[in-house]
């Protein structure tokens, strides 16, 4: 039968081995793989400014990006591809809550300046080109609305 000290060794050894493995793989991801897979050289100061705006306003509290965040408003990873930059700019600079008249769900009316809107768009453009191992998947069917 397993004794308590054997159980303790199982715990300690497992913890140490898997922590070391995890830290090693994290290092590989961060240092060896990250820059190429994410086009890190394209993270311009404008993209960084966009990320600051993204965080300072907690856009993730309604939207998801890379599939992370809240489930209330559209996934934005491919928003530029889906809607085009001018549409997105309209959303960001809107003086009234976006969605109020279309879906009933409301975005906060940020009324961003042109410069801020461009920074967020630069951020979305960078996001949209990161290699995400196939996310978001293309839908298997394309449904057309009949009314």
């Amino acid at each position, binding site marked *: 039968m*397993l004794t*308590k000290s054997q*159980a*303790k060794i*199982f*715990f300690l050894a497992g*913890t140490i081995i*898997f*922590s070391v*493995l*995890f830290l090693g793989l*994290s290092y590989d*991801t*961060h240092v060896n793989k*990250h820059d190429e*897979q*994410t086009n*890190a050289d394209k993270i311009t100061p404008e*993209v*960084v400014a966009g990320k600051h705006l*993204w*965080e300072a*306003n907690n*856009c*993730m*509290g*309604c939207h*998801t*990006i*890379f*599939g*992370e*965040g*809240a*489930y*209330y*408003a*559209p*996934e934005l990873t491919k928003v530029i591809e889906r809607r085009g930059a001018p549409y997105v700019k309209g959303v960001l600079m809107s003086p009234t809550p976006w*969605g109020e008249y279309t*879906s*009933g*769900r*409301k975005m*906060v009316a940020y009324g961003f300046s042109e410069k801020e809107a461009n920074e967020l768009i630069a951020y979305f453009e960078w*996001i949209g080109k*990161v*290699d*995400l*191992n*196939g*996310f*978001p*998947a293309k*839908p*298997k*069917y*394309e*449904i057309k*609305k009949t009314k």
Partner: protein
Amino acid sequence: MKYTTQKVAYWFFLSALGLLALQIIYGFIMGFAHMGMDVLHDFIPFNTARAVHTNLLVCWLLLGFMGSAYYIIPEESQNELYSPKLAYIQLISFLAVGVTAIIAYHFNWWEGRKFLEIPRPLDYLVVVNVLAFLFNILMTLFKGKRQTTTALVLTMGLLFSALLYLPGMIWFDSQTLDSFYRWYVVHLWVEGVWELIMGGILAFLLIKITGVDREVIEKWLYVIVGLTFLSGILGTGHHFYYIGAPSYWLWIGGIFSALEPLAFLAMALFALNMYRKGEKKHPNKTALNWTLGAAITSFVGAGLLGAAHTLPNVNLYTHGTLVTAMHGHMAFWGAYAMIVLAIIAYAMPNITGRKLFNNGISQYAFWLSNIGMIGMTVAFGVAGVAQVYLERILGVDFMETQKEIEPHFLVLVLCASGFTAGVTLYIINFFKFGKPTDEALVAAS
């Protein structure tokens, strides 16, 4: 043996229940918003409600864990708490920081990263606060007469939680790295070190309630926390599938996270077996219900419902949908909310001296809240699966999909009302115990 400084725990438990009540109110705001009734938008937009809801959750669970430690560590180490005064200062300052953050969210001041919304300056205060807490616990342990495995596992869980908070405080220009290290906090907390805390509290309760020999219980405790780290550390990979990290995480994360339910299964079997072996003489049936309930519900909510979407080919479609919310609710409830409610139910008669072990109110509180939570999980699950099929498989637009699944949120709100009735009864029962007294604790020893 009981120690008079254990009564510090009462104030942590009281505060925890207060924040739980507030958390639920913000849950309703979001439930109605999802139903198409976002009436409070101008004052409490959805992102505010969400940050408040999830941060209050984390805050009350942490207060519950701290209260548990203040109750358990003196008893386990057979020594009065090192400094009750520091504990009170630490409680008040924790609440002050928490409340400031919650108010700040209403004024668009935050660091918009899911679960880590607390503004940076307040982060530092949290760190200082947690250091004070750890100092108090560690000093009590060092000066104690004995160091038990239960106390050690609990303390390790708390210590590692503090350490793992730090990677979440680093700024990255890249969203990928931001997300990558955010999971060091979020995943390695709930599927790693918090399981040590849960295991420690569970072991303590089982020792007290079932009367099974400590050596047996603590042996299995090592096995459980061993399984946790064996699967849970590399299991972090299930969050690295689709954020711009290398594709080797698909199979590493897939394999190891699929093993994670084993730790929760072990926890459930362990609790049930100890109960069967035990004497079944302990009068506190309410605490027993919550203890066994936590072990079983965490297996269902975290283990089974987590495994349901953890494989990369499933997660590709469910990632970031209401399926995640379904799992999040029952996992947090079963593993962490219920274990905190269990230790409160166990401790209250001892620190107040009122032997309200098992009455109608406490029975209704248990069953209503749990049945309500099962209903909520089903409602989120149905909404989530419908969302996945419509939006991700049939290609219907996001907002149109949301319109279609609105009715499920009516079901959610109805079940949440039952859940809330249960929690309300639990809180009423809490107040029936009255205040803690030294006499009760002296008499108990």
